[in-house]
């Protein structure tokens, strides 16, 4: 452009024809202001913006937050989620290979203790089934492009993802209600106690030694409060994402709710893997609690000593171990202490 203008400049200079207005080299082209306004650069003043089509944000020429959201989802969320979820899976596998199944050391007593009511189990399994549906469909939205679409093709893979998203859309609000009921029905026994600190320092008995626990151990309590707190964040943000045409949230707000939703969902899914592993194959005698509502008394004694003591009026082994309580005179106390 400069080159093309030069002949004009030369011609003018030759004619000795000075411009009437002294050129101001510092003058800012209004074109610059126009594009600053369009790109929402500071300082900008787009004045009154008008456009004919109705609907939110049609007056926005450039969506400034879009690129940040793209970076978040593609460069952060997806790689980090893959590492976190994969890392937890590998950790569980290693733990299993190193430590094997956690047995009831004293063997089953055959004596059953009531642990969960029928209603509690109904609530737990409702939440669990919906959670698994939400997690699987959510994971397909998150990672499906890398395996479902290349594997099943865009036609079938797309239709499958579409139906999984519908399942996600519809089970989400139901999950929200079920989660609320669960938070209420499981609150008793989930408040932290001082001995939970000891459980945490002993890593729940993973480092050997006995870790004291009430009705729920510190790990379960942590899971309860995480599921309650982060779960509600995921539910509320999910509801916003579920009804894009109702809430009046704009694009940036939706993208922020998506951030909350996906980060919360990945956190819950990661911890849930540990919970599911513990509750099913990791520990002898754990699954039957939620399946039948009853646990074996020796299981309760070994894993929930405080609770067992409270309901049977027996002194718990960890009390004797810490010297808080006189050791029980029965000969079994010593073996139990080791077993714990």
């Amino acid at each position, binding site marked *: *452009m*400069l080159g*093309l*203008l*030069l002949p*004009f400049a030369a011609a*003018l200079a030759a004619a000795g024809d000075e*411009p*009437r*207005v002294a*050129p*101001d*080299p510092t*003058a*800012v*082209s*209004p*074109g*610059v202001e*126009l594009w600053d*306004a*369009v790109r929402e650069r500071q300082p900008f003043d787009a*004045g*009154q*913006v*008008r*456009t*004919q*089509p109705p*609907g939110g*944000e*049609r*007056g*926005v*020429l*450039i*969506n400034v937050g*879009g*690129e940040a*959201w*793209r970076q978040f*989802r*593609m460069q952060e969320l997806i790689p980090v989620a893959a590492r976190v979820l994969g890392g937890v899976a590998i950790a569980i596998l290693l733990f299993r290979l190193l430590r094997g199944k956690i047995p009831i050391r004293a063997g089953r007593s055959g004596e059953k203790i009531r642990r969960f009511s029928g209603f509690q189990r109904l609530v737990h399994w409702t939440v669990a089934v919906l959670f698994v549906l939400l997690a699987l469909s959510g994971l397909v*939205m998150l990672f*499906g*492009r890398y395996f479902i*679409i290349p594997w099943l093709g*865009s036609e079938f*893979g*797309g*239709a499958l993802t*579409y139906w999984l998203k519908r399942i996600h*859309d519809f089970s989400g609000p139901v999950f929200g209600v079920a989660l609320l009921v669960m938070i209420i029905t499981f609150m008793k026994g989930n408040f932290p106690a001082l001995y939970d600190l000891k459980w945490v320092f002993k890593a729940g008995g993973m480092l050997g030694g006995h870790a004291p626990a009430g009705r729920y151990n510190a790990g379960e309590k942590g899971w309860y409060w995480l599921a309650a707190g982060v779960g509600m964040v995921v539910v509320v943000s999910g509801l916003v994402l579920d*009804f*894009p*045409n*109702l809430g009046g949230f704009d*694009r940036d707000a*939706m993208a922020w709710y*998506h951030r909350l939703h996906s980060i919360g969902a990945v956190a819950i899914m990661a911890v849930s893997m540990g919970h599911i592993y513990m509750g099913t194959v990791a520990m002898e005698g754990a699954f039957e609690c939620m399946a039948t509502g009853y646990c074996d008394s020796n299981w309760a004694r070994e894993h929930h000593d405080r609770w067992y003591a409270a309901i049977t009026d027996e002194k718990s082994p960890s009390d004797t171990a810490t010297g808080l309580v006189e050791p029980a005179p029965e000969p079994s106390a010593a073996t139990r202490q080791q077993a714990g």
Partner: protein
Amino acid sequence: MARMKFYCDAERCIECNACVTACKNENEVPMGVNRRRVVTIRDGEPGERSLSVACMHCSDAPCQAVCPVDCFITTPDGVVLHNKDTCIGCGYCFYACPFGAPQFPLDGQFSTRGKMDKCTFCNGGPETADNSPDEIRKYGRNRLAEGKLPLCAEMCSTKALLAGDAGVIADIYRKRVVNRGANAYLASGSLQKGAFEALQTPPQPE
């Protein structure tokens, strides 16, 4: 091979909305969707400018990058096409797009989104059968297959909106800019003064 581009000249657009109307009509665009729209900024003030905006058929398209089902293809002409059969209506392309091009018809049940709809550069969909009834129903007319350019730009009375091969568009626009600069210089800043003050600075010989 062409590299298709739109360009809207803010110094020419007169906000007549003919492009918007042409697009809606030619492509039978669904309710609630405007594939093209004209935005005026500084309305009624000095420096008022209008721009007609639609999908810009990005080279490294954000919509394409974020789509969970890999809905998009870029044709050899550089047109970004979207597959409505695969789309799950998640709205991610709408969050990521710089230009607000992806929009959603208001027909999703329970207020969820329907299948995304956006400008096709009048190139239909990814279907192989050009201008089949199916393609027309889903995406509108495939003018490129008929050797024609997008109707919005073809309609534009001031030729503010240009569509076509990037090289050709760039040449046309470059000529306009040079002419405007020369005019501004010759008139010593008096011509359309507000718009071109920066060009009062005489070019320095290199």
